[in-house]
């Protein structure tokens, strides 16, 4: 069993958990993820590790409560335990040879960008972080980014905090003002990643994205996480989750991520209405 050591709400839907998982913590690296199952009836869902402490044997996850499993996860309190945590999975972020990088995060994607940005910064890479949010109320991880990056730029779509505009606007402004990046890393909604890649392609800057695909096993066994990269099928769980964004077939990715939408909507309404988030058959 995987005990929850601490729980911290970052905003109304995003929560940070520290979980006891010594086997995972021992090997975890930035960019890798875990798969968890809350209980016997639960789905297996993938979540990026926001950090880890190999001495204490703990890992960090930051998740947004968007559907059934993440809502159930939100019911867990310190001292409760998850049934299964597998990992670390996926390839770690590649950092070799990089000196200066811009990391672009969008919404919850900032949670996935955080370990990458911090991991790079900790190895001595200069990291400019552009963290984009819809509005002031949902801004997360500001302090963490301030402490773990070289420069932090916050944008909001409505201008209620930081600079008004999209992350792509800020990235464009930085590049045009003469900042030179070896690489851009973009993590967020697929549409945002797609536009970042279109922008950086124009300037010839290599861009790495972290893709979220439906996953079951996370070890290359089910093929459910397949994504098209440069016209070839790759499995996000073992070949990724990070890929060269300029080679991603975005339209197909966006389409595949909508597969279970209707079913999930129904499930979610069920959890909320009937039980306020707790399983009824337990």
């Amino acid at each position, binding site marked *: 069993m995987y005990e929850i050591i601490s729980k911290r709400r970052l905003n109304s839907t995003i929560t940070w958990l520290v979980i006891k998982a010594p*086997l995972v913590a021992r090997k975890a690296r930035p960019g890798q993820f875990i798969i968890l199952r809350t209980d016997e*009836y639960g789905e297996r869902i993938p979540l990026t590790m926001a950090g880890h402490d190999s001495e204490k044997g703990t890992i960090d996850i930051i998740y947004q409560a968007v559907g059934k499993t993440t809502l159930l996860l939100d019911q867990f309190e310190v001292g409760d335990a998850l049934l299964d945590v597998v990992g670390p999975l996926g390839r770690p972020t590649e950092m070799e040879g990089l000196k200066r990088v811009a990391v672009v995060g969008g919404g919850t994607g900032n949670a996935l960008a955080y370990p990458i940005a911090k991991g790079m910064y900790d190895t001595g890479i200069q990291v400019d972080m552009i963290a984009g949010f819809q509005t002031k109320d949902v801004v997360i991880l500001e302090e963490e980014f301030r402490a773990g990056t070289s420069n932090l730029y916050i944008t909001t779509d409505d201008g209620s905090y930081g600079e008004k505009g999209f992350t792509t606007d800020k990235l464009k402004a930085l590049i045009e003002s003469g900042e030179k990046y070896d690489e851009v890393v973009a993590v967020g909604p697929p549409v945002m990643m797609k536009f970042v890649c279109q922008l950086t392609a124009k300037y010839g800057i290599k861009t790495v994205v972290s893709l979220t695909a439906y996953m079951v096993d996370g070890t*290359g066994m089910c093929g459910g996480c397949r994504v098209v990269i440069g016209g070839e099928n790759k499995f996000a769980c073992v070949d990724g989750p990070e890929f060269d964004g300029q080679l991603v077939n975005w339209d197909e990715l966006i389409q595949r991520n909508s597969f279970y939408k209707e079913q999930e909507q129904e499930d979610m309404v069920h959890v909320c209405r009937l039980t306020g988030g707790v399983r009824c058959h337990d």
Partner: protein
Amino acid sequence: MINLVKEKNPMPEQDPMVRNKNFKEVSTGYTADMAINEAMRCLQCRKKPCTGGCPVRVRIPEFIARIAAGEFEEAYQVISTTSSLPAICGRVCPQENQCEGRCVQGLKGEPVAIGRLERFAADWHREHGSGEAAAQADSNGRKVAVVGSGPAGLACAGDLIAKGYGVTVYESLHKEGGVLAYGIPEFRLPKDIVSSEVSALKDRGVCFINNAVVGMSMTVDELFEDGFEAVFVGTGAGLPQFMNIPGENLLGVYSANEYLTRINLMKAYKPEYDTPIQISRKVAVIGGGNVAMDAARCAKRMGAEEVHIVYRRSMEEIPARQEEIHHAIEEGIHFQLLTNPVAIRGTEKGYVCGLECVEMELGEPDASGRRRPVEKKDSNFVLEVDAVIMAIGTRLNKLILETTENLSANSRGGIGAEEETGATSCPGVFAGGDAVTGAATVILAMGAGKNAADSIDRYLEKRV
């Protein structure tokens, strides 16, 4: 007294039109009377050709004689001296190509129903046995790690613990059993049986660590650093293959592994489980092996009105077990033989709406000895379906090969290992089962696990 009836005692089964709507076991098993009656058909041949057809050399006429005498527990004990998973083998082994394929009774009539008798003895033991664990060897204080808890890993672990080794099994999924847990459906192999085999190993002292992906959570080299003196790799061949035809990433195209895992391991057919799965009306399953049959029969049970097996050769060449094909036909699965898919068609929103196929005819035999299917010109047609399941085979997953220094592959892309001993290019690392041979059978995987246990024992004895 010998029973001269030429046919096997028929297996009691659920009615096909009832069972194709539930996940309960299809065959309900012989009663004691049926088992004795069937056992009487055995001629007790002195040369035992049946035993020669069994990859783990079950002492077949001996256990059958015990059943004929009504000594069911003794029959089980005879089997368990060579096979650690009789309740499983009795259900899923392709007996027609193995023991029963060589049975003398099969020359003039039907062979003795060896598989059904094996299942009977094992089920009898589970229900009536004393539950006493086999006598334990004294611990020799040495540790061996087993990677993967499929039949290869379980057989290896069972034999090693019997020899006195401390055994830890590392499994990447949350449940033990490999394909027995995630692939083969409940209606063919109840999961309780798999769990009870695993519990029996736990009772005998085997330690299982689930949620541990060797190659990611720890490497094989790190297992040695942790004090294991040998490692057996039985990770199976789980990487699904696709056909590379247009439309394979449309919504509603599954690999058989994903489809079966959602259903069998993640229990998508039970409403209290969260696992999402598409509810399809018309399904095409591509392939002709056991995996294809299982996927098709699951689709039917998930409520599909129409399920088609699309296979490019004819009924003569189809690789699935006879019994499974027969069961599938009874349950209303359609067989589109000599048919090959060329593209999958989708709606505007990306959902599957059809499978474009071409008719085939059989030409000259190819390297595999089977007649090679060739396309008939201008014979394209569209099968209207809303889901397509790819069951065209799997390959080895490379996690361990890529992360273990000096471990070499074989020509099929599996782990390179000697057939007899399981020894690999890395000292102390042994491998067997599907990870070495590519997709094969439960009994061959078990045989490989047992052989490896023997050679690990010899290897460690030399290396005091």
